[in-house]
């Protein structure tokens, strides 16, 4: 029944639009929620002043395609949230933006990803330089097993950002202040970073990222391992950071996306389904799948 309906609709659409693809299911269990035809991203994916712009990005893990033809711009100094059900490819997409996927041997990427108009997958692009410009905060707080000071100072040290100890001290203090952690740790800067609470550790990781003074910060579910109070602090921090940084945040929590971001992109099974102003996405989603997801019918 469902299949015949789908075939009808595909046939219908085939008359007008060549690009039409039906979403391929990875598992039979998903079939019930996917009897919706996808043609292209709904909403305005382009930005006037794009920091990042991605075109026709496809990502493959060996023979499995994880991302299908994603086109998305990230505006300068905006916070964009990537939402979607588990396994939809939002983290994979995020990791393409600082070439973190390079570390996975079986991962292959094609399409274009430009940062300030330069192709970051170009041969002459150095991933080390790229990652200095595009910082990343991970899902689980992962401070180095070193002191708080050394954690923050590590980035500036390897890049040689400071000339002397005093400058480095200032930089570390500044980063910790910006991450809202300085007052809590100023008496134990040389204590172990792993001795902090989960929320503090995550803010330490953010401070560590800020210390390199990147242009973009990628955040991969930064609050998913934290309790509500720590989460609130992180969200507050993101709101402060957006003055100076472009932030791309992957999140499972729709409330969080609504609270911190200006734009929201909804991913589903490797495809970018809909992108638009956060307000519009949450109040008036244009695509059926987006609506189903934000109203909690699956996820």
């Amino acid at each position, binding site marked *: 029944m469902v299949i015949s309906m789908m075939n009808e609709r595909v046939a219908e659409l085939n008359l007008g639009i060549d690009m039409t693809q039906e979403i391929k299911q990875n598992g039979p269990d998903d079939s019930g929620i996917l009897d919706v035809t996808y043609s292209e991203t709904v909403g305005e994916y382009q930005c006037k002043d794009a920091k990042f712009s991605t075109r026709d990005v496809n990502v493959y893990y060996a023979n499995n395609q994880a991302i299908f033809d994603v086109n998305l711009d990230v505006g300068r100094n905006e916070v964009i949230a990537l939402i979607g059900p588990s396994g939809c490819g939002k983290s994979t997409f995020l990791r393409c933006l*600082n070439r*973190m996927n390079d*570390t996975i*041997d079986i991962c292959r990427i094609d399409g274009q990803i430009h940062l300030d108009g330069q192709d970051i997958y170009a041969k002459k692009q150095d991933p*080390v*330089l*790229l*990652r*200095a410009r595009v*910082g*990343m*905060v*991970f899902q*689980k707080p*992962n*401070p*180095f*097993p070193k002191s708080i000071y050394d954690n923050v100072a*590590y*980035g500036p040290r*390897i*890049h040689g950002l400071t000339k002397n100890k005093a400058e480095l001290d200032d930089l570390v203090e500044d980063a910790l202040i910006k991450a809202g952690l300085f007052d809590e740790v100023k008496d134990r800067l040389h204590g172990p970073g*792993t001795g902090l609470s989960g929320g503090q550790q995550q803010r330490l*990781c953010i401070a*560590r*990222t800020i210390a*390199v003074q990147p242009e973009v910060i990628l955040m991969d579910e930064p609050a998913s391992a934290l309790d509500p109070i720590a989460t609130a602090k992180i969200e507050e921090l993101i709101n402060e950071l957006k003055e100076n940084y472009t932030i791309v945040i992957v999140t499972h929590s729709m409330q969080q996306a609504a609270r911190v971001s200006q734009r929201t992109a909804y991913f589903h099974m490797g495809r970018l389904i809909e992108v638009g102003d956060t307000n519009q996405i949450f109040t008036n989603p244009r695509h059926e799948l987006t609506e189903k997801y934000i109203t909690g019918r699956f996820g």
Partner: protein
Amino acid sequence: MSDAMKNTAIVKSGLKKRYLKEKIFKSAGIVSIAIAFMFLLVLLTDVITKAIPAFTQTQLTLTVTLDAEDLELNQESSIEDIMAADFRQPIREALRARFDGVTKRNDKKQLYSLVSIGAEYQLRDLVLADPALIGQSITVDFIADDDVDAVIKNAIDRSLPESDRRVKDLKLSWIESMEASGEISTAFNWLFFSAGDSREPELAGIKGAILGSFYTLLVTLALSFPVAVAAAIYLEEFAPKNRFIDFIEININNLAAVPSIVFGLLGLAVFINFFSMPRSAPLIGGIVLSLMTLPTIIIASRSAIKAVPPSLREAALGLGASKMQTVFHHVLPAALPGILTGTIIGMAQALGETAPLLMIGMVAFIVDIPQSIGDPSTVLPIQVFLWADAPERGFLEKTSAAILVLLVFLISMNAIAIKLRKKFEKKW
């Protein structure tokens, strides 16, 4: 009866069986531990009880007259003259003076064999240290012969009929007479730790073998540790995943399973025959043992590197660290406890290894204490093998003592491994 109640009854009826199984398994575990522990206990008790006598030495107190004319020496004699002098005579005279009336040639021979042949060197060393002794009478505790030692330590049963006894009645009477007058004493056997090997059990020491083992392990460590760690880092962090690397991995694992004597044959064929390197030297021993230790350290290091959480690598890479920086600043320090443990286990294995060293001539009888990695020497396990093979009774206790020394080294190495592990282990 409802379904829930029925299920409860079914679960309840099966509980007894489940607990019984658990109990049986637990007691089987305890029994196996007890058996293993018992074997260990038997081994250790046997070694220790046999080894204890080796740490004491029987001494004969004699008063010798260092007659200047007989020795052809005076206060101003050069070292060469003292070295060349015959110090056997004063000791023999002292023995003849102690037991007068020994005239027959055979009896005299037996009398002289109360002291070790090392006694004359003992006397010579005393004179060398203090030439003023020439012309004086001095009382010295001389090292007793191993037969005297055996009688004193009750290793020879005095109640046996003479025909069945290694020490004959005449000699036994002399020993008993000296024992009664307090001229026989026992002291801690320092010689065991300061001398090299010897044909005479009472003079044989383990220092040569300890130093031989030390130099061999030094070469092994210097060669295998950097090579193995570098190989492990490359294979884990940098190597592309392809068939060639798979082939190398399989072969490293195979290398770990090659019988150690094969490495000895390789050392003989390549290093000694082809490169004409010195025989019996710790240098070759070390090279051969490092071939054998390499796979052990590589495998241990690889699993230690593999166990470093990927989040640590991502954290460093995400900050813009290069691959090299990530590895050397974060991965290696985190993997260090595992690498060190693997290394020490590999070294302990090398310390106990005998077979490959037999092939490269480290089994030779070497009296001199090695001074460098190029000197001929032997190692502890081979010293055990050599002494265990010796016919003299005195070597029996030496064998056990050498095993004990080897065990002490092995246990301390393992203790260091645990200590290092604790020290470098960081929690995250």
